[in-house]
């Protein structure tokens, strides 16, 4: 990606306050952030526009996380998907999600810096 500024980011988490937090954090850096509380909306948004990054929670009601992941990656292979997890996940599942296109993992609770490290260099 040539211009690292103003990334288009999608947050997918069923806990709205987590999404809000991302919005606040990433807006501080000038990124464009949207969120979806379920997989259905996430896929719909992904079809409407191309996201640079998607932060996807591992436990989602409705469509299972791995299906949301696959769908998003199918719509746009350039979109990087980071899986957020609130509990320890076994290596089997980790590998499976990696195979399905997850680029990174974030263990809750994480810091703003942990997120920033995943995004292209800001300076």
């Amino acid at each position: 990606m040539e211009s690292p500024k103003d990334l288009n980011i999608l947050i997918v988490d069923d806990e709205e306050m987590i999404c809000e937090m991302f919005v606040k954090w990433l807006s501080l850096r000038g990124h464009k952030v949207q969120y979806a509380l379920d997989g259905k909306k996430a896929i719909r948004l992904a079809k409407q526009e191309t996201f640079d990054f998607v932060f996807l929670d591992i436990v989602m009601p409705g469509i299972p996380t791995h299906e949301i992941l696959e769908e998003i990656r199918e719509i746009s292979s350039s979109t990087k998907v980071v899986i957020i997890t609130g509990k320890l996940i076994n290596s089997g599942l980790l590998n499976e999600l990696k195979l399905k296109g997850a680029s990174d993992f974030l263990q809750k609770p994480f810091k703003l810096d942990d997120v920033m490290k995943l995004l292209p260099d800001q300076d």
Partner: protein
Amino acid sequence: MTKTKILIVEDERITAEAIQTTLEFLGYPVSSIVPSGEEAVKEAKKEKPDLVLMDIKLKGEIDGIEAARQIRSLSDIPIIYITALTNKATLERAKKTAPYGYIHKPIEEKDLFSTIEMALLRRDLELELKESEQYREVVEKARIGILIDDIEGTILYSNEKAAELFGYSIKEIKKQSIKSLVHPDDIKMVAKFHKDCVQGKSVSSRYVFRGIRKDGSIRYLELDAVIHKKGDEVIGTRLYMRDITERKKAEEEKDMLHQQLAHSVKMAGIGTLAGGIAHEFNNILQIIEGHVEFAQRTKKQEDIDEALNIVTSYAQKAAKIIKDLLTFSSVDESTRKKRVNIDELIDSVLLLTEEHFKKRNIEIVRKFQKAPQMEVNKGEMQQMFLNLITNARDAMFPKGGKLKIETKRNRNRVNISFTDTGVGIKKENLSRIFEPFYTTKGAIGKGDIPGTGLGLSVSYGIVKRHGGTIDAKSQEGKGTTFTVTMPVAKIKPKKVIVEK
């Protein structure tokens, strides 16, 4: 009643016929008349008369005494001698054949009647005695232990088996007190049953106690105690005992396995629960930390204020989760049963799971009829409810749905039902769901959702131990209802008392 048949042995034809006429007049049919000893023995063998009237002096090889001896050696037929002879030597010989009477010639009707009646009475008494001796043998050789004690509990009689049960000889066990054969912890109970029995409060009772053998080892004995009377007076109790130690051991072993199984399932359940709580907690920590960080970086006062408000409200949310968790785990884990309100118990499980369910789009509908108190093991009940609730959750994953929990009183039982709108159970699988290790989840069931196949089998065990039942109705694609039926009344200890 069959009439008494009499055989007459008399070589004088006229006398014989006269006796026959008299007997028939008195109401005794004569089976036959024979003139010799040899024929008498033959006839007694063949006809089996009830009584033989035997003349001592007979023509032929043997006389009446010898004939009587031979008949008595083969049977119990009573013999009455008819004789005109009264010499001492003959009398001595006759005595040795234990005759039932002596009638002197010339025969008088009243003598004949009373002697025959007395002989028949004696025969009946002897038969009874013989029978009671057989009974005595039955008791003595019986394979159940039989003791008879007096009002104080001192053993007056013991059969072979009873002595063997306690490791004593019959001689040693007699004169012992029942108390000395009972485990100290059971003495009070045994004494109470004994007292009730001898005081006439109950005529019989059945219970299990621990017996102490001579060598100090313990046997589990099932006892039937029956009041022992002499006439109208209660003189003690009769005790019938069976050794059920092996059965008891097997039951204990089964219980232990059940407990171990229940424990491992509980651990698995707690693991799942912990996973859910960890997820929720990490979310809260994330929100708190994230907003603190945001507050530190933003320059706008209103953003800072809003962030701090969020931090406070999520800290409170975390405190509530901890409180619910404590409510759930504060339950007494001992195996003792306690009186509880079943609705409150279900609520304590729901408190912990409801938030988690909301996130999975599951709505919980409570329809509690004011349920009566029940005597249950709280920890086990909670575990059973948690199993059924998490099963419903898994059945509705990932679509979500509705879980209706209903309690309804039905006479002295309470029906507790859990109805979900999940995937349902295939008809062919419905009969197997309570089998241990039967599952469609986890590694065994090749499913995405974790599962051990033990939840329902353990739940089944818990319900059964509480004297209840559990069953499932399901329609594929529509949902499943589990109904637990539990007794309201306290489960009484095993005791059978037949009121007087």
